[in-house]
């Protein structure tokens, strides 16, 4: 469920690369998720700080690499979508190979 929009704040999610496999993972309610739709969305500075802390802890624990926050838009159903085109590709997979990456995995065609 989405929250009321705060025009002064861009919602954010935390993403990183899984250390062992290298694929993109998103911080969710109970830890790292491979599905963007399960990403926890930060709607204010306090929630961003929580995400940021989770990223730093996961890096320190050698679970993920290169965790960082990404601006997202949130649709009516509460689904986040990265705002910048780079992160859009990152969250989906190569735009030139729909059979690879997250987009394939979500369709059951990929193996991650």
């Amino acid at each position: 469920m989405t929250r009321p929009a705060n025009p002064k704040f861009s919602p954010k999610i935390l993403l990183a690369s899984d250390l062992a496999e290298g694929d993109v993972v998103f911080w969710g309610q109970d830890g790292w998720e491979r599905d963007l739709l399960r990403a926890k969305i930060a709607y204010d500075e306090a929630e961003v700080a929580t995400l940021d802390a989770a990223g730093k802890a996961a890096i320190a624990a050698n679970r993920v690499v290169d965790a960082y926050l990404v601006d997202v838009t949130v649709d009516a159903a509460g689904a986040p979508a990265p705002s910048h085109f780079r992160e859009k590709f990152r969250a989906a997979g190569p735009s030139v190979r729909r059979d690879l990456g997250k987009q394939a995995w979500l369709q059951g065609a990929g193996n991650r």
Partner: protein
Amino acid sequence: MTAHDPALPPRPNSAPTIYAYDEYDRAFVRERVAEFRGQVERRLAGALTEEEFRPFRLMNGLYLQLHAYMLRVAIPYGSLTSRQMRQLAYIADKWDKGYGHFTTRQNLQYNWPKLVDVPDILEALADVDMHAIQTSGNCIRNVTADHFAGVAADELEDPRPTAEFLRQWSSAHAEFSFLPRKFKIAVSGAEHDRAAIKIHDIGLRIVKNAEGAIGYEVIVGGGLGRTPFVGKLLREFLPRADLLAYLEAILRVYNRFGRRDNKYKARIKILVHETGLDEIRAQVEAEHSAMDRAPFAYDAQELERVAAAFAPPAYESLPAHSDGFEKAKAENAEFAAFAAVNVAPHKVPGYAIVTVSLKPIGGIPGDATSAQMRALADAADTYGFGELRVSHEQNIILPHVKQDDLLALWRDLAAAGLSTANAGLISDIISCPGLDYCALATARSIPIAQAISQRFADLERQRLIGTLGIKISGCINACGHHHVGAIGILGLEKKGVESYQITLGGDPTLSASIGELLGPGVSAEEVPDVIESLVQFYLAERRDGEAFIDTWRRLGHKRFKESARREGEDGSGI
């Protein structure tokens, strides 16, 4: 057995950092694999942080990219055996996604390996005398060479023994393992430059002096990236005996004076530019004179040993022209088109060099599926002594094909989707992976290549347009060599969207030049229209026999720019 096994006698004729395909070589690579396996285990166990681990993985060609890790495999001077190609296919199937990407530096990249699998992949590479060492990091990278080496009709000398000498000298070279930045060397031994030697940190051209002695023309300080430079002539003639010592001297000067405070100004091209060629030459000569050259002394016996590995295969004695080949061309227009574009003259009568395009219309430049890799290996075994080359144009070369076999080869290639007759034409586009894969990229490049390829899909029209190099990079680092494309395309981000700058007049050969900017960037959708307008202007203005670059040089940049501006009035955005 290890490389340091006391049971092994010292390697004869060895330089201190020598690296060759013998038992020492194999032991060295195995040791590196074992070492990296331990490093990966420690990383996964948390004993190494990413900061500590990163230099180790980069030393073994392992990057972390946008969607996954990426492993860059070295293919020294682009030479491959069919066995090695099959192993690359096996690795693609077992640990990756069933394909590989051949790069502008004659390497192969896997885009989807898991860190946990990389030691096994390296082990599999070692099984066929391959590795990923020095394909990353601030060291001397994989030495590249003319992909027609040893067979080109215009060749003075095969550049591969020289390249192999340099590979052995530079591999695991302790002093040059942490240079200010990466360092790239290319070697050519022919009249025409197919190795782009003028855009490398060091370019070597094998030449003969007035006395008939073989030596090297030494070019230094070329390179692309955010500050592109054409290399400058450091030595007109370097005697062969001085090769290793002189290169050692160049690298020492660079290692000492190259900037380390700013990675964007750290390449030797900046040092040469800021210091001045004469001063650099003086420094190199002084170092060369003062250094202990004994470890790098020329050893004719060693060169002979290395050169023997590149001895010509057992060619048959054949007439220069094949009646069967001529008849096949006369009867099959499609085959004739392939022969006209993808087949090059061979130094041995009755043979030909075949360029297998990895640029099918609308395809991803440089990508080959594992099935295609196997088809190429089979073709090499059937028609070409089991040998293949990778070109810096991201194509595969079969260097020894009998003219009599060309038709059969073409049919086999067609069955594997590898018979596109576009080598050197407008759809033979060099493209880096761009933002579809690369963490550094600022825009996509592959879809731009695909769109241009589809716009000019008609191969007959492509032949009419003639030789035209389009090169695309997805960021300023210029892995797609856009600066030296007759038409260059650079993808950037502008106000939150992908934007493409177009340059004209670039040239990677001995007449090297850096392209000039056409105007402000255009959107991805507009790129094919702009290319179309430039091509139409060229077709209208060219004289007989003029390639695009020739017409551009004759008419000047302004005329082309004006033509594109006129097109812009109806929406091209220029």
